[in-house]
C-alpha cells in the first residue's frame, strides 16, 4: 500500500496541516473575508448603478453600461486584476500607501459589478410591467417608482444569484496574491501556498481548500434552501372559502335582484 501512504503524506499530512492552521485562521481567513466582503459591497453598489443605467430609457446611459459589462465580464479575472493592480499602483500609493490590497479589492469589485449588474437587471426586468404602470398612473415619477416598488421586488428575486456571486468572489479573491501581498495581508490561498512551498508538501494547500469549502458549501446550501422557499412560497394552507361569502362583505349590504336582464 505504498501509493496510499504516498497520497496521505502528500495531501493529508496532519502535522503540516495543523502547523498552518493558526495562520490560516488568523491571517488567511480574515484577509479573504475582508477582500471578499469589500469587493461584494462595492460590487453591489456599482452593479446596481450599471443595472439602472442598463434599463434606462436613455441610450446614453444604456450604451456605456453595456460596454462596461461586456469588458469586465469578458476579460479573465487575472488579467483585470493585474492591469488594475499594477497600472494604477502609483495613484494608489498616493492615497492608500504601498499596499496592493485596495487595488486588488477594486479590481475584484469591477469584475463582480459587471456580473451583479446583469443579475440586478434581469431581476428588475422580470418584474411585471404593470407595477411600473400602476406607479406612474398614480402620479409617481419614474425614479420613485423604480426605487419604491420595482427595484425592491427585482432584488428580492435575485438574492440567491447574488449569494452565488459572493461565492465566486471568495474564490477569485485568491487571485489578488499576484499583486504581491505583505506577509500580514496574505489571504487563504497565499498562506497555504507559502506553507506548501516551505514544507514541500501539499497538505497546507489542502487545509486552505478546506477553509474555502467551509465558507462556500454552507452558503450554497443556504441559497438552495431559500431559493426553494421563494419558489414554493411561504403561503400557509387555508381552508377553502367560498367566493359567495365575499359578496356579503361589502358595505352597504347591497340588495340585488338576481336573474336574467336584457
Amino acid at each position, binding site marked *: 500500500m505504498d501509493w496510499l501512504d504516498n497520497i496521505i503524506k502528500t495531501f493529508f499530512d496532519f502535522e503540516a496541516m495543523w502547523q498552518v492552521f493558526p495562520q490560516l485562521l488568523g491571517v488567511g481567513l480574515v484577509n479573504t473575508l475582508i477582500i471578499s466582503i469589500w469587493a461584494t459591497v462595492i460590487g453591489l453598489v456599482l452593479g446596481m448603478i450599471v443595472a439602472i443605467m442598463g434599463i434606462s430609457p436613455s441610450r446614453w446611459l444604456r450604451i456605456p453600461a453595456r460596454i462596461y459589462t461586456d469588458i469586465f465580464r469578458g476579460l479573465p479575472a487575472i488579467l483585470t486584476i493585474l492591469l488594475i493592480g499594477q497600472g494604477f499602483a502609483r495613484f494608489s500609493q498616493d492615497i492608500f500607501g504601498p499596499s496592493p490590497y485596495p487595488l486588488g479589492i477594486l479590481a475584484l469589485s469591477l469584475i463582480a459589478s459587471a456580473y451583479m449588474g446583469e443579475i440586478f437587471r434581469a431581476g428588475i426586468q422580470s418584474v411585471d410591467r*404593470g407595477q411600473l404602470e400602476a406607479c*406612474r398612473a398614480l402620479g409617481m415619477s419614474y425614479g420613485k417608482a423604480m426605487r419604491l416598488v420595482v427595484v425592491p421586488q427585482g432584488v428580492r428575486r435575485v438574492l440567491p444569484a447574488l449569494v452565488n456571486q459572493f461565492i465566486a468572489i471568495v474564490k477569485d479573491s485568491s487571485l489578488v496574491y499576484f499583486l504581491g501581498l505583505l506577509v500580514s495581508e496574505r489571504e487563504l490561498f497565499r498562506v497555504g501556498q507559502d506553507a506548501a512551498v516551505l514544507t514541500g508538501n501539499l497538505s497546507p494547500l489542502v487545509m486552505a481548500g478546506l477553509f474555502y469549502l467551509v465558507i462556500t458549501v454552507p452558503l450554497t446550501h443556504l441559497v438552495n434552501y431559500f431559493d426553494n422557499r421563494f419558489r414554493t412560497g411561504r*403561503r400557509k394552507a387555508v381552508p377553502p372559502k367560498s*367566493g359567495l361569502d365575499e359578496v356579503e362583505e361589502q358595505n*352597504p349590504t347591497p340588495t340585488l335582484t338576481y336573474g336574467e336582464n336584457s
Partner: protein
Amino acid sequence: MTYTSPVPVTDGHFYEGSSLELIDLTMAYGDVEVLREVSLTVPPGTTTCVIGPSGSGKSTLLRGVNRLHEPKSGDVRLAGESVLTQKPDSVRRRIGLVFQHFNLFPDHTAEQNVALALRNVKGLSKAESLRIARERLAEVGLAERADHRPRDLSGGQQQRVAIARALAMEPEVMLFDEATSALDPELVKGVLNLMAGLAQRGMTMLVVTHEMGFARKVADQVVFMDEGRVLESGKPADLFDRPQSSRLQRFLSEVL
C-alpha cells in the same frame, strides 16, 4: 348577464368629477395607428362606457388620456385644459386608473398599497396616509383586510383595493380598463356595484368594459369602437336597442 341594477346611493362620500374631452385623438405604436381621430366628451359627473371587440383600441384610448402612452396627435382636455401641455405626473394625479390585472404591489399590504402614493406623491405624513388608506378601504368593504397582502386576497378584493388606491388620490376622473375581466364570475358584481356607486356619487368615469348590463344600466353614454374608430355613440338604450351600424349589430349579437 351579470349586472342587474345599481344600488341606490344616499350616503357616503360624494365626488366632484371634472369634464373629460377627447378631440381627434390619434395614437400609434410605431407606425401603426391604433386609434384614429377619436372624439368624445364626458361631461362632469357622468359615466361613459366604451365597448367594442378586442383590437378596437379601447385600452390604448385610456392610456392616451393619462399619457401612459403619448398621443400622436389630437388633444385630451381635463376640466377644459389640455393635458398635453401639463406635466404628465401632475395630470396622472388627477386621473385614477384601474387595471384589468389590478397591478397591486405584491410586497405591500392592502393599506400600504393605498398609502404609498399618498405618502410619496402627495407628501402626506405616514400616519395621515395610513389613516386615509384605512378609510378608503372601509369604503370598499375591506376594513378588516387592511393588513392582508394581495396574494391573500381574492381577485375581487384585490380589484377593490386597486379602486381604493386610485380613489385615495382624490381623482377628478376615473378610468377603468376592463376592471372585471380577470375576475371569477361570482365576484364581478361586487366590483361593478362599487363602480356604479362611484358613478352615482358624482365621479366622472370612462369605463372600458365587456359588461353590457353595466353599460346599459349605469352609463350616461355608450361609445362603440372598432379598429381604432368610434363607430357609434349615444344613450345606452339607443345603442343597445337600435344599433345603426352593421358592426355594432354584429358585435351585440355575439356578446348578448
